[in-house]
């Protein structure tokens, strides 16, 4: 899921202060912590208060969408509302905000969140962690299932660096685990230090360079093959 953090109310207000009617749109998708209808309402009220303190009146409506990052869902859910509003404030991650701007070309959608990372949920320890940076060339098969891109502050392919002490990383004041010591530990446990020892050559960073796209396949069929066979 995408981990987000709400921007300061000042920053959000600054973006929308020239408008008098705004549509505030939550997202029921994977955003964490949740940014749904209730969060949208609270944000709307805060903006209203802020406007009032500056002697202005702000009209708003809060709604939510199943997933703002899906063009069909965003379009069908939000379209009935937009014509009454000057601008949209979105509580979704960057994916949703960009998609809303793309789907609704004639109105600006502003972000209420900073999108932080794609996070895995560690409920036992109460935190989200970035376990994958979507590098496009997955190394987990040779690293014992520990990601050296997301887990290592220097994205090293042949770690660890000299900055590890007692299995902790120099970045973050020796509080986070060093991914490469973890990798070594895991591989040792499974008697696969041969994998550790292997040299991993420079990476292909084109696979990790923006912008990135992937095709959506809409249909599959075996008809053609069957017809060929029949012929």
């Amino acid at each position, binding site marked *: 899921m995408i981990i987000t953090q709400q921007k300061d109310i000042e920053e959000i207000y600054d973006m929308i202060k020239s408008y008098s009617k705004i549509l505030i749109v939550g997202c029921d998708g994977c955003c964490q912590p949740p940014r749904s209808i209730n969060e949208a309402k609270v944000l709307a009220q805060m903006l209203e208060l802020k406007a009032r303190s500056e002697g202005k009146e702000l009209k708003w409506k809060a709604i939510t969408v199943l997933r703002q990052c899906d063009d069909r869902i965003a379009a069908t859910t939000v379209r009935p509302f937009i014509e009454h509003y000057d601008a949209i404030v979105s509580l979704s991650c960057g994916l949703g905000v960009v998609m809303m701007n793309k789907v609704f070309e004639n109105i600006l959608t502003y972000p209420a969140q900073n999108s932080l990372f794609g996070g895995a949920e560690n409920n036992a320890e109460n935190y989200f962690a970035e376990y994958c940076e979507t590098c496009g060339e997955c190394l987990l098969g040779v690293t014992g299932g520990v990601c050296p891109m997301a887990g290592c502050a220097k994205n090293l392919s*042949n770690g660890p660096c000299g900055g590890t002490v007692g299995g902790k990383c120099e970045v973050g004041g020796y509080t986070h685990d060093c991914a490469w010591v973890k990798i070594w530990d895991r591989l040792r446990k499974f008697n696969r230090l041969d994998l550790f020892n292997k040299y991993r050559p*420079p990476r292909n960073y084109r696979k990790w360079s923006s912008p990135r796209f992937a095709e959506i396949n809409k249909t599959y069929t075996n008809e053609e093959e069957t017809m060929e066979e029949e012929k």
Partner: protein
Amino acid sequence: MTKRPAYSNLVKTMREGKFLFTGELEPRKMTDLSSILHSAEKMKKTGKITAANVTDGPQGDAYTCSMVPSYLVQEKVGLEAIWQMTVRDRNRIALFGDILGGAILGLKNLLALTGDHSALGDNKNARPVYDLDSTQLIDLVSKMVDDGTDLEGNEIEGDKIEINVGCAANPNSNPRGPEILKVGRKVRLGADFIQTQTAFDIDDAKDFLKELEQFNVPVLLGLFPLKNYGIASYFDEYIPGVSVPKDLLSALKKAKKEYKEDKKKRNEVIDKINIEFFEPFIMEIKKTTKAAGIHCMAVHYERLFEPLLKNF
């Protein structure tokens, strides 16, 4: 892999089996390099220092580059440079270009390092690069020197590049397992020599040197003479994994207190403390290990070289 020729005087001397010393120079945020050249001159004058490392933005700080001071130290002082290069700030294109530039300037030793993360330095919000890691940098240098190409196999025109490349190793590494495997990988990729981080514990240092013997590459053990109590306690407290022996710390503290006003006397006492600690240390390493020598990181403390090394 077959041994690369010794292009530098450093590697030549190592291969001759002569116990040698290297020093360290640290360009900071400066446009005037006279203090660096002055330090290099003092090292050269001792007649005991084979080459000096020139650091590349240590602790992640934004400092004067390492290439130009390396060149000037060779050109103006006649002391061979060990040009430190980190992969923190430059991608493979910039690293390649710099190595070509350094080769044109006659630099002969390159120490390939990862580099302290920029988040530790004085421009914390910088985007760290790490396009290559230090192992891959050694691969790049090997391709340039041995094959005359870049990483993609594109040929370099002109004279052959004559550079020897070294790697770092950490005697304080904990756990040590991955460190040893990593050093081995670097040697397989073409590292000609190893310089270690600072050691204070003689037994640890000897153990570590013993483990490195399997790679059959000259090793310089890193030592860090302590110019004053402040540096020593900083080292002890803030450089994780490194602890300065208690006796050494308290002796330096005592010197600081007793000779607060008398700088000359204080320096004399501090030099004596360092000599009493490091001279037997070096002697022991020289006699009982296969180390090729000592990398003496006495930055801004060159006056110690003469008395410390007089018996070597």
